[in-house]
Every structure is written in C-alpha cells, then in structure tokens.
C-alpha cells in the first residue's frame, strides 16, 4: 500500500518528464584524440574532422573542448606546414585558419579528461578548459585512439578503462552535468568501451565489436601515413552528404542505418538501452548542432530580483580598479644596475668570495681552538 502511495506521489512528476526530456538549451562537444606520435596522424585527422563538422553545424569554439595529444600540423615531418588533411585529395585543410585547441600535448591525460568531465578542476583553470554544462546540455563525446578490450590508451603511456568512463558519466549525471549524451568512439574493440555504462540518457556507438580491429581507410603518399579511419570516414560521408545545414531533419536512426559492415570492415555497434527516446525521433542536430534556448523560471518574483540587484551593486562598489592610475612619478627604471634585493622578494643569492681581516681572524681562532683542544686532550690522556 505504501508503494502505491509513493507511485501516486510520483505521478505528477512523471507526467512532466516527456516534455522535459525533449528539450535542451545548449550543446557541447568533447573531442579527444588520445594518440601521440606521427604515425597516428589519422587519429588527429579523425578528431579534427569531427571538430570541423560540429563547428560547421553551429557549435561555437567556446563550447567545444578539443584535446589533441600531439602536434601533427606543425610537426617537422609534415610536408604541408600548418595543415592536416583527412583525404588524399587534400581538398579540405582541417587545421584551417581558425582553430582553438584546448588541451594539447602532455595535457591530454586520463586524469585531465576525467577532471574535465566531472569538473573537478584546479581553481585557476580557465573557462576554455572546462566543460561548463548543466542539466539542459546535450553533450557529444567523441574519442579516438588505440584501444583494446575495455580500455583506450592515452599517449601510449596510460589507459582509461570502460569502468572509468562509466563512473565519470555517472558522476556527471549525479551532478546534473548533462541532459542527453552521444558517445562515439573509433578504436579497436570500441564497443567494449561503452558496455559498462549505467547512467541514463546516453546513446553510444562504436566502430568495432570485441576482438575486432578498427581499420584505417586510406593513406596519402605525400603525407606518408594513413589519413583517416574507416568508421569516422563513413560517418563523415553521411554527415557531409545529408546533414547540409542546421535545419536538417535527419535522425540518429538514419545515421546508424547508414553503417555498412562491408565498407567499414568492422562491426559498428549502437547501445540504446540507456536512452529513453526512439532513435527515429532523435535528430542528428540534437548532438552535432547547436541550440540557444532560454529557460525562464520563477516568473514574477520581483522581490528576488531586487535583492539580487542590490547584492550586485554592493559587489560592484567593492571592485577596485587596479592599475587605473599607473605610474605618476614616471620614474625611468631602465638603469643597468639591478635594484637591491628587497627583503620580501625571493631572489637568487649573490655568489661572492669575500676576504676580510675579520673572516681571516675567525678562521685562525677556530683553528687555534681546535689545536688547543687536541693538545689538552693529549695532556689529559697522559696524566
């Protein structure tokens, strides 16, 4: 009976759910290439292709977290400086003229990735390195690199396991850091990576099943290495040919139905059991595009606004203007002689060899005292 009462209480809440779950107010993308070294060029090309796609469909740079574990664009081995191509025809330069890489090189670590997702970051972390999402944000997470059964290698030095990602996503859910999530991964045995997820509203897809490799599509003889992976290539092909602009009505079902094992050469997987919407109702633009919806709550609460405004004005009054009036006496500080080290400043020590009569006297006294002690000891020993 008690159970029935609880259900009755929950019913009004449940009634609002379908309305709520259909809406999101912002879109974010976390794009991660975990591979270092030149021969992993294709992983950077994969992730940069996705970066171009989400940017093309409207997600601004401020809402894209791009993690590149190595620099291939300005790598001395790259015959095309500041360019990265995902096709041997070199029609599109993925690096372009406008790119913002948020985490690069040694910064791409498992720790930083999990800190980014869960927002457990250092207090000084700049906004561009944080995932500032809320419970109305749709998040697209794309990862690529070298992986295996339930792990993905970072920088050829450490691994993230499927359990780590699953737990991080659960923390995100508990902290209301996403509304819905699309997880896409292109690596060997990729489907094992999302097998441990247990948080709601995650739609996951991967390039290959257990014990199956994820293969590269083709190479470029002038670049000298493979330039893109097959799974990402066919995803992009679909997005380029069908999702031409932000008004596209193509659904995730269309994307997943376009996967062809014969072309991809591995078995792509889709996990929908955590996702409570029908795939043919989920637009691709829900994850790859951007919305800027505003949610207004607490209508007509005038008093609260007044309190907020007062508090803000008090804060504004407190703000001092540093450097508003700079040097007044305009002292030229270009003297070649360094200013004497201040007591409060931490400075290097000046190495000097001082020879003063007092120092010499101290030395002589010390030596004399030692000699006297030794002499006294021998005398005492004899007696």
């Amino acid at each position, binding site marked *: 009976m008690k159970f029935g009462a609880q259900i009755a209480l929950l019913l009004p809440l449940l009634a609002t759910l379908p309305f709520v779950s259909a809406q999101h107010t912002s879109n974010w993308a976390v794009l991660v290439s975990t591979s270092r070294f030149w021969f992993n060029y294709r992983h950077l090309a994969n992730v940069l292709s996705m970066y171009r796609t989400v940017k093309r469909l409207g997600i601004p740079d401020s809402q894209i977290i791009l993690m590149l574990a190595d620099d291939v664009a300005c790598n001395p081995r790259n015959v*095309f400086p500041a360019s990265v191509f995902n096709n041997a025809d070199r029609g599109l330069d993925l690096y*372009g*003229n406008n790119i913002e890489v948020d985490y*690069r090189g040694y910064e791409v670590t498992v720790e930083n990735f999990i800190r980014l997702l869960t927002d457990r970051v250092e207090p000084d972390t*700049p906004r561009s390195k944080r995932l500032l999402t809320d419970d109305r944000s749709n998040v697209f997470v794309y990862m690529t690199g070298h992986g295996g059964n339930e792990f993905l290698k970072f920088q050829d030095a450490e691994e993230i396991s499927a359990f780590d990602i699953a737990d991080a996503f659960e923390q995100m859910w508990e902290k209301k850091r996403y509304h819905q999530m699309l997880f896409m991964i292109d690596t060997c045995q990729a489907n094992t990576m999302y097998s441990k997820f247990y948080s709601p509203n995650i739609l996951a897809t991967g390039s290959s099943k257990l014990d199956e490799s994820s293969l590269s599509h083709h190479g470029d003889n002038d670049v000298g290495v493979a330039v893109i992976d097959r799974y990402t290539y066919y995803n992009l092909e679909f997005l380029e040919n069908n999702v031409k602009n932000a008004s596209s009505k193509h659904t995730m079902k269309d994307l997943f139905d376009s996967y062809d094992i014969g072309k991809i050469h591995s078995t792509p997987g889709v996990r929908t059991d955590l996702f409570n919407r029908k795939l043919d109702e989920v637009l691709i633009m829900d994850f790859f595009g951007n919305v800027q919806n505003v949610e207004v709550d607490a209508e007509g609460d005038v008093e609260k606004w007044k309190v907020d405004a007062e508090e803000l004005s008090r804060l504004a009054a407190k703000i001092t203007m540093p450097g508003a009036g700079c040097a007044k006496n*305009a*002292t030229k*500080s270009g003297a070649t002689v360094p200013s004497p080290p201040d007591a409060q400043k931490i400075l*290097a020590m000046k190495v000097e060899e001082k020879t003063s009569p007092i120092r010499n006297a101290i030395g002589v006294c010390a030596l004399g005292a030692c000699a006297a002690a030794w002499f006294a000891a021998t005398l005492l020993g004899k007696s």
Partner: protein
Amino acid sequence: MRLRPWLNSLLLLFLTTTVCAYVYKDYDENLLLKTLPNNAVLASFRFVTNGTYTNHHSLFPRSLAQILSHSNTRELHLKFTMGRWDAESWGAQPFNGQTAGGTGVELWAWVEAVDGPTADKRWTTLTNALSGLFCASLNFIDGTRTIRPVMSFTPDGDHEDMDRLHLLHGSLPREPVCTENLTPFLKLLPCKGKVGISSLLDGHKLFDAQWQSMSIDVRPVCTAPDSCVLQLTQTVDMVLDVERSLQRRDYPVPRPRPREELNCDPNKPYGADGSPCFPRSNIADLPWSISEVFGRPLHSYCPLASEPAEHVCLDVPQERPIYITRDSIEVRHPDGRRCYTLPPAGDFDIILPQQSPALPITPFPEPPLYASRSFTGHGQEHGGVKAVIKNPHPTRPVEFVYLESLPWFMKPYLHTLKTTIYPAPPATGDADLESPVTALYYRPAIDRSRGTHLEASLLLPANSTLILTYDFEKAILRYTEYPPDANRGFDIAPAVITVLKHSPSPQHTLPYTISGAPIQQGHGRVAIRTTSLLLSLPTPDFSMPYNVIILTSTVMALAFGSVFNLLVRRFVGADEVAGKKKFGTVVEKIREKVRRLKGKRKTE
C-alpha cells in the same frame, strides 16, 4: 591591374610633411619587408594598441585586460618562437632581439604583490589564464620552471612602485607553436586579420618560415604624470625563403627540381653532362611579390589605424625596381626605406622583378655577440655545458649577462663553472681582475619543486671569444615522472644573453611612432638567445615493471615452494624406514634364487 613604378618627388615631399603631423590614435600597424642574403625576406609585422584595464570602449582587447587585472600583472612579455635566427648570414635580430624569445614559448612578467609567495600565486593565475587564451600549455610553467632573474630584464613600462613588483620568468622549450596560437593572436587585433597588414598573416606561410616569432608585450606608458595608457605591442617577425615559397606555388609537395632548372656551378670540376651538379646559390634575386610569398595580396587597410600613414615599408637595394598597385603612394626615406600607403579599398601588392646578377644586400648590422651552446661529456650520469660567446668587434669590449634556467633534474656543480678567454688577455697577476665574471647570482634547485637559476654578469674584451663551461649531474626520475616520449629527450631552455649598454644602430629604431612617443624596448639592451638543448636522461625500459613483477613472482614461487616443501615434509633416517626390510627381502629373495640356481648347475 595596371602597374607602374612611382617616382614623384613633389608628392613625396608633401606626404612626408603630412605623415609627420598625424593625430593621436589608439591603434597603429606597420609592416617592414627586408631582403636578406640567399633570397630570404624578413617580414616584420607590428601592431600597437593603446588602452586601459577598465575602459571597455577602447581597442585594447578585453580578454587580455581582464587577465592582467585579475592577476595583478603590470607588465607582460609573451613570446612564441620557432626556428633559429641565422646571425652569421642575416646579422643581428631586428629590434635588438627584444621581440623574439627562445625556441618554444617564453613568458616573463612583473607581478604586483606584497611578498614572494603571493607573487607566486598570482603568477600561477596568470599562466593558467594565458594558457586558456593562447591555446598553449603555459600552465606547465610551475615552480620548477619559474625563475626570478636579477640582472637580465628591466621593465619597459613606467611603473610607480618598483619595490612591489616581482619579476617572474618561465619558458617551455618543447612547446610547439602552430595555428591554434596564431588564431587567438589575431583575435586580439582590432581588425582581426581581416583587413590591413594583418590580412597577410596566414598560418600556412607563417609556419613554413625558416624562423618566426610571435610576441605580445604589454606595458604601461606615461606621456605625462597623469596620462598613462596600457600599451599592447604585438609583433610577428618571420624569415621567408623566397625560393621555397615560389616552389610551393608551383608544386605543393616539395620535390627535387628537374636538372634543367638547376643552376649548376661551372667552376666545379664535376657537374657537366648529366652527372650530379653543384648548385650555385644566390645567382639572382628571385622575382617575388606579396601575393606570392604570403599566398594572398594585402587586403585594403585597417580603418582603425592612423591614416594616411605609410603602413608598408620595404628595405631593398635602391637599384632594385619595384612595382606597386595603383592607388598607393611611395615615400622614399633617406635611410633607404621605401614606404607605401595602403589603398582605401581593394588589394595592394608589391612586385619585385627578377634581378640578375644579384645586387649586394646589406644585412642587418653585425650583432654585438655570437653565441652558441652545446652539451659535452658522455654517459648517463654526468654531463657538461659549453657556451661559446664571441665578440666580433675589433675595439669595443662587451658587458653582458648570461642567464640559464635549468630544470631540477639537471643539477649543475657551481664549483666547475669556468670561463676562458681566447686569445688570453695579458696577465695582471690579480686573479680577480682577470676573471671575466663580474657578478654571479645562483639559486640551486630543489628536487621536484624548483629549478636552477644561474645568472652571470661577464665582461668580454674586444675581438675575443669566451668559453663558459660547467658540469652537471643527471637525476634519475621516478617511473611516473617520465613523459610519454621519454626517449626523445628533455628540452633545456635556451640561455638568454643580454648585452648591456649597446648603442642602437639606426636600422634598429622603429620606422614609426604611435601617439607621439617612440616605442622603446629593452632600453638599448640587446637580447640574444642560444638554441635549446636536448638532454637525454637515463630512461628505463618501460616494460620493466612487468619484468620485475614476473621475476619477483618467480623468485617468490621458488622460495615459497622450497620452504613449504621443507616445512611439510617429514625427514627420517634411511634405517628408520619401516618398509625397508620388506624391500630388502625382495632383493634378497631374488639373489637367493640366483644363488640357488647357480648351485644347482654346479651340482649337476
């Protein structure tokens, strides 16, 4: 496009007078192109913006102003540099080397704070914020990479209270510089790289240069006691290889030239009739234009900059003809520079035709010092550093400061620091007077929390070479402290050499001013940087832990097995065994039988 050479002296006179009288502006930009030997071209872009921390209507970028104000930074210098400046053939660096940093990223700033620890905290805030703004891993400048130089740097700005300012310096020699650093750099400009000279800044050309440096300098400038502004100077210097740029236009992929296109040296004994040929260098000044070397023409001019000013200046031999697009006016300066105004609309291009034979090019004047630095020694434990610094001037001695910032895992022995001068100066008998070291500042490293800071003030006599050496010990890192590519080695930041009291030569002064005040940087000091070094530390085999685990397990299994065996087995004497008799009887019985059989035979 109709092109014609401009030579109108009357107009020239008129323009020079108007240019000198232009009014106060908050933004100005300028491009200097200078031909260097071996068909290289130096392109030096300068953008100067005036503003304040608080005034949001000024052109000063708000993103940067907020960071500076939040971290209490009063003066900032941030440099992104790649490649090596070839001083032997190009001469001294432009602007006394003040606009370039060492390889990778170099940052120094004067932070206002009451004491050292507060300054450190604000410095961390600053580096983290800048890492977000400039897409570089500046947050890796932590305590181990930060030093506080004593003599090498002086503030360029006008500061009120020097006692409260803390100078902090950090560098990341391993940091790559690429388009993601140029993108935020351009976003700081008022015209965002869309029009004006910044429209030429394309990552594909900039990062194809032989040497390039992007620099951001912020300093307070006071023209009068009560009128102070915050001045942001953004500079891009790059040395382009004209031959390579032109080749890229024809073949995007670098390929060897066909033989008929090579200029073989006929003076060499080989090279005739199809055999390998020795190419002649610099036989002609190659034809080039702005649109060819930068990949696009200069688009219009930035309306926020002062006008009508000479935004583009060219420093090429006087005899070389130059063609420009129609709506531009040429101004010839007495020092040989030819400057051009930009057209109000449309594209601007400068075309230099081929010049054969090549005209003699005056490179930049000789630098006050040539410096190089290398590692000595061998093995995994010890090593040495040898810096060779040469004063080429025949009569003038040079006073300079040598600054090293070493990571904690490279531990120098200060007592091994030695300086030798060649040719040896005449002996005076007094060792103190003979030593070129006039002052030495040192702050030793602390493992994992602080790097070594070594700063020496030296006096080098004219026309002589100084060799500075010291030995160091390599630390062994912990397993998790190694980066993913540990076998590549660890980059050691370039040494910074600051020449004090150098009289600036005319070519070093800037070709223009903003708001009446000439831009001065470094107070006539010259900065020279050596290349970075690659230190190889003893690197473990990273599969070692697994080997250790396997080996330990084997040893443990063996030890445990034998001990367990000893403990549970009962040892008894051979004669105490109960079953022995039985066993013996069986053998005895067989023997008995054999004996009996033998006996039977004998009896038979």
